[in-house]
């Protein structure tokens, strides 16, 4: 069921939120054991929420009244275990909700549960979770992508109509691509980060994962906008996305950068994106070649900036106020032991690796050579985008260089895993918005994704372009066989 389907049922009084909960409980019960997209789920609580919603008067009912939304496990929901899929936060129930969650509640949604993810959003496969891996609904031997793998897999498997993810280097777009759904990384500052458990504060954004572009716009409409609790959220009006979404692409200038179609992008993906460009030409868009010369520096820049910030952001998990604390040994426990053992037991290997790397690039004697230098290269990468958007309205690239890879394939080879983010990472470094949407299937039936990138706060353009493409193709109508 799409959001629109549910809303029509409500409008025609053919179903209540309790009925809708029931229609989602069946597929969840059937498919969740195979896909494992949830980090936390409580059917009773869901039924209670539905009853609460039913007691609301018409005037109180918000724009997403009675629509189930799955929340990534790193977005705080008051009283609900929010753990970043990490042992170190096992059982943590925040005493407050993230701003986006407050806005969703005001819009009347049903909070469906918490979605599995790579621990602290460190990963591109959803294998680094203390709850075990999530699987790709299109092929259960493959990863759903990450880190928002649970959110993308649940939407693809029709267990949730809408989901929230977070994107630091591609964590919404890459799983959207692997799972054949639509994911948006909004402009940095468009959506409040208050309540998003930080990975890399200067890169993180919360964004919607949905089946269609239109639903994506609908969900962004609810969560976007200035938040006085987030100093980095932009105090700008949020446009009415529904108004412009049907305007088409006629006359729009779409850019293609050769740096995004280079080595590493497998032929099937390249061909799918080229076919999409043909589609856009047919729809009246103008395609231009442009150059993004600093793209090759994106991954090293990202891994320095992101791990540095992460090493600091994860320092608060030390077992004093919340989270996992190591048991004292036979000889008791000193403060230092309490810190080091709690963190050793609580963090998985990828989290440890990134914390150590981030500590290194900030440490005395190395700061300038690594972190300081990376911040300057970040400026160069951002300037590539500034120049590109002087010439074009939107860039078109593949989302990921390959379709979903197999579970375990890259687990012990962190560098190769990092390289799979090559097409999404620059977007976070530049702070610009990007929309990932399906653009075809491989011969073996795996979804492939296309990424649309626009200038800051031009999400409207992305929805417009994405919607035009979606209307002209039928990829969104395919369903995984589960």
């Amino acid at each position, binding site marked *: 069921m799409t959001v629109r389907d549910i809303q029509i049922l409500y409008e025609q009084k053919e179903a209540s939120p309790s009925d809708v909960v029931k229609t989602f409980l069946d597929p969840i019960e059937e498919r969740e054991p195979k896909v494992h997209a949830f980090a936390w789920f409580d059917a009773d609580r869901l039924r209670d929420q539905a009853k609460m919603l039913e007691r609301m008067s018409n005037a109180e009912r918000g724009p997403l009244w009675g629509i189930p939304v799955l929340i990534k496990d790193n977005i705080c929901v008051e009283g609900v275990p*929010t753990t970043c899929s990490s042992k170190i936060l096992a059982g943590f129930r925040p005493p*407050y909700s993230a701003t986006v969650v407050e806005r969703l509640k005001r819009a009347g949604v049903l909070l469906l549960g918490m979605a599995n993810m790579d621990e602290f959003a460190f990963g591109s496969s959803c294998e680094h979770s203390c709850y075990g891996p999530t699987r790709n609904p299109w092929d259960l031997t493959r990863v759903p992508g990450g880190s928002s793998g649970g959110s993308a897999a649940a939407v693809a498997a029709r267990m949730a109509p809408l989901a929230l993810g977070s994107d630091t280097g591609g964590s919404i777009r890459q799983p959207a691509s692997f799972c054949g759904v639509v994911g948006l990384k909004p402009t940095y500052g468009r959506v409040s980060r208050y309540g998003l458990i*930080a990975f*890399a*504060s200067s890169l993180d954004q919360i964004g919607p994962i949905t089946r269609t572009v239109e639903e994506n716009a609908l969900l962004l409409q609810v969560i976007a906008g200035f938040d006085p609790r987030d100093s980095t959220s932009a105090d700008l009006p949020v446009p009415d996305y529904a108004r412009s979404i049907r305007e088409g692409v006629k006359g729009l200038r779409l850019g293609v950068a050769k740096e995004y179609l280079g080595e590493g992008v497998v032929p099937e993906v390249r061909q799918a994106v080229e076919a999409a460009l043909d589609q856009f030409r047919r729809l009246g868009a103008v395609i231009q070649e442009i150059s993004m010369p600093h793209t090759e520096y994106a991954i090293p820049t990202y891994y320095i900036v992101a791990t540095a*910030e992460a090493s600091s952001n994860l320092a608060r998990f030390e077992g004093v106020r*919340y989270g996992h604390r190591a048991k004292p040994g036979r000889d008791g426990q000193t*403060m230092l032991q309490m810190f080091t053992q709690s963190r050793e037991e609580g963090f998985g290997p990828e989290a440890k690796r990134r914390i150590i790397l981030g500590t290194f690039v900030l440490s005395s004697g190395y700061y300038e050579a690594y972190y300081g230098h990376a911040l300057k290269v970040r400026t160069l990468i951002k300037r590539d985008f500034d120049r590109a958007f002087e010439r074009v309205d939107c860039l078109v690239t593949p989302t990921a260089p390959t379709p979903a890879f197999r579970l375990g394939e890259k687990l012990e080879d962190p560098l190769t895993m990092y390289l799979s983010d090559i097409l999404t990472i620059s977007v976070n470094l530049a702070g610009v918005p990007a929309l990932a949407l399906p653009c075809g299937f491989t011969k073996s039936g795996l979804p492939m994704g296309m990424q649309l990138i626009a200038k800051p706060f031009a999400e409207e353009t992305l929805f417009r372009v994405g919607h035009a493409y979606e209307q002209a193709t039928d990829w969104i109508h395919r369903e995984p066989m589960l």
Partner: protein
Amino acid sequence: MEYRPVIGLEVHLQLKTASKIFCGCSTLFGASPNSQVCPVCLGLPGVLPVLNRQVFLYGVRVALGLQCKIQPTIVFHRKNYFYPDLPKGYQISQYDLPLGTGGHVVVPGTAAAPGTDFKVRIHRVHMEEDAGKLVHRPEEGYSLVDLNRAGVPLLEIVSEPDLESPEQAHEYLKTLKGILEYLEVSDCDMEKGSLRCDANISLSPASADRTAPPTGTKVEIKNLNSFKAVARSLAYEIKRQGRALDAGEKLMQETRLWDDVQGMTQGMRSKEFAHDYRYFPEPDLVPFAVPSEEIDRVGKGLPELPRQRAQRFVDQYKLPTADAVALTSSRSTADYYEACIRLLPKGKEASPCKAVANWLLGDLAREMNERNVDGIEGLKFPPGHLVELVDLIDSGKISGKMAKEVLTEALQSGQSPAAVVQAKGLSQVTDRESIRAAARKVLEEQPQAAADYKQGKGQSLMFLVGQLMRKTKGAANPGLAQEVLRELLENR
């Protein structure tokens, strides 16, 4: 060998905002543990800081009051280290782009060298958040954490290493505290911890060039709970380091803790204190910039500071410079003084101005010291009372000696000086006839002294005055007593 101490001080000042620096929790001192905390200052996962505007305005005020230049771009950094009282595992502080730099404080000369002003340069003024508090239970082998203080706004005021003795350090702190009180941004209460100080000290050879960077090994002293402790700990370190250097030992760059009871510093050996703070720009806060009009506006709104006020006291009230400096070093004393002056009868202020100053710097200062009260308002002796006391002396109603008694009684009972005089019947006898009667009796009882005076022994007059005062239980006006006695003796 002769050494010259090179001393710099870091002062931490808690700002008296209503709410914390990055969240809306109260900053009130003394609340029950962990009752003034929220997700932000507890460092819960997902929270973000937003800067309190008042902290920034107070910071600009202090920076300007200390003659600093406000920096065009002001950035917060994270200072990363682990300690159980530091909720996020980093402190939001400032690093290479602080609020203000390049200021100075002019310190009036020390007791050892009065009248020799010296200048202490202010390296920087920056904003940061305070940490929580630990309660140690060493017998039970654990500690307790209270995070009410976590996130209380602090200004750190770092001096250049311009101080050369513990006395100078002490005077600098006194002067700095005076200025900060005038700026009305903090309680400046060391006991409550709203003013704290760490010291840095190294020794240079006495012969070394003062303008060259110091070459000694810098030691940081922490756990200093009073200005006195700062001076004592520095004196201790000067001795310790001097002895070590004389013995050819190599000093360690380290942090040492002052033990006020034992009167010594001790090094901290634990590995927990090996730090590499890994400063980097705080991504959760944006940069700040103050438009120059705003700087001008705050600058114009600054109150008169101690130095300017002392000069005005000299000009306006004709006070000696030393008195003016002493009166103005504390804002409350200077305000009290001027409140007194305003109450003086118009047209005849000149001599009472000095008298009021004398009382404030003499008896009242001593009373404050003895009663261990902080500031003149702690004495419960309002300006009206002091003016009344001075007026009682000036009009001859009581003697200066009686006035001291009256003051003690007034402080004890809370009555006004006039009421004390009334109640105790202390009024000075100024009636010439009653003094003459008493004087006649004295002369009868002391014929020898009277005769001595006649023979030219002038000092016996003072003896006779003393006898008269004793007879009247000190109530006689001493000037009048002397006059009447002389008159009687001359006419005999």
